[in-house]
């Protein structure tokens, strides 16, 4: 993880610089607005990944009943909430430029607002239970149940209804509609944000473990 941390700084610096300097703005978009794809889509991907990580660790807790797994799951949800909010913010900026308003209840826009509600619901549910073991059990069950239904929220529902959102990377043609420079910077951003998530997850969950151990030793 130390090497990931050392690699992340130059990697993300290069991604940010390249996103503004290298690829040309995409056709069909106003001005430089297409460059937001290098930040908006990785944030969205990371938000969804975070929930899957939380669900995976929740399954781990249900099997092994190791408190460490529950801590990682909760941390993953908190970080997922952060990246989902960033997705909404970057998406709103794009919506303002392209469609003239920050928010217009577009199905794809709204699906990430509901993802924020989903993350928040997990944290509310945990906060409403006092007993630690029961809190972990209920939180894990909700995370796994929600992870099964989340694809309907994020991938299916926005495709059933008409949307203004530009065609996504996962599209019916099965092709990535980007030129080579854009594709390079895009996938570099995707890798960078993923690394950033796992680095933050490691730090936050380590802090949670130290807090628990300190509480146990008094």
């Amino acid at each position: 993880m130390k090497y990931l941390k050392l690699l992340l700084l130059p990697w993300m610096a290069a991604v940010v610089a390249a996103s503004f300097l290298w690829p040309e703005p995409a056709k069909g978009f106003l001005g430089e607005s297409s460059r937001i794809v290098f930040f908006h889509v990785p944030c969205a991907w990371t938000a969804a990944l975070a929930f899957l990580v939380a669900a995976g660790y929740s399954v781990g807790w249900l099997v092994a009943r190791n408190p460490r797994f529950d801590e990682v799951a909760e941390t993953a949800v908190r970080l997922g909430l952060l990246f989902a909010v960033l997705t909404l913010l970057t998406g709103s900026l794009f919506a303002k430029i392209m469609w003239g308003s920050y928010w217009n209840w577009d199905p794809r826009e709204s699906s990430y607002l509901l993802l924020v509600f989903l993350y928040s619901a997990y944290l509310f549910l945990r906060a409403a239970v006092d007993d630690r073991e029961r809190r972990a059990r209920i939180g894990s069950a909700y995370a796994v149940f929600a992870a099964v239904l989340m694809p309907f929220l994020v991938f299916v529902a926005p495709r059933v209804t008409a949307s203004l959102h530009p065609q996504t990377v996962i599209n019916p043609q099965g092709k990535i509609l980007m030129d080579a420079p854009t594709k390079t910077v895009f996938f570099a951003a995707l890798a960078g944000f993923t690394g950033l998530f796992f680095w933050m997850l490691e730090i936050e969950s380590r802090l949670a473990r130290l807090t628990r151990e300190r509480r146990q030793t008094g």
Partner: protein
Amino acid sequence: MTGPRARLGFFSRAWAVCAKDAAQELRRRVAIASIFFFAATALALVSYAVGPFGLPPEARSSLDASLLWIILFFSAATGLPRAFVREEETGTGLGLRKVASGVVVLAGKGLFNFLLFLAIAALSVPAFAVLLEWRVASPVALAAVVLLGGWGLSIVSTFLSALVARAGQRNVLFLVVSFPLLVPLLLPAIAATIQASEGAVAQTPLRVLAAYDGAATCAAYLLAAVVWED
């Protein structure tokens, strides 16, 4: 124990849980009456505010479908969460844990909630059609939407009821945890209802509903024992 006798045992036990819940609710009638009264109030309010001629013709089918599912969802939300909360309030949860497994209890209460939803829909949908002059060109398609949407709503509500039953702020918490999970069900249900009212069978939304119901049922089945633990 395996084979037909074990399967019969599971269904008969689940049916016994369903029948117990039904007997309990019908004995007191307050909760059931309040659910139907809520549906009637919501219908009356919408009908009074909008009326059969208050909506622009080009938007009628989508607005009528949306209003119908809002009424059905919130009417169900007043009653479906009670499935497990009732056991904790009456102190019968521990006794039920001794005699029935999580899967049996979830199946029985899910079935009761589904039947309750169908009862709400059986009264609300015709009343809605009469009060708002809502014409449905394909009643069969509408019935399919109500059945699929109702099952998904019931199984998710029953499972989440088990999760929040022993938490604080149960009523508020249920709405908070259920809303984001039920939106992917309600959106295709509304889309399919629009097409049913126009005479088409909405294949894509119906397939989405069926897939959602299957996924929710499997997930609830696998996690039933976890949420039913003491």
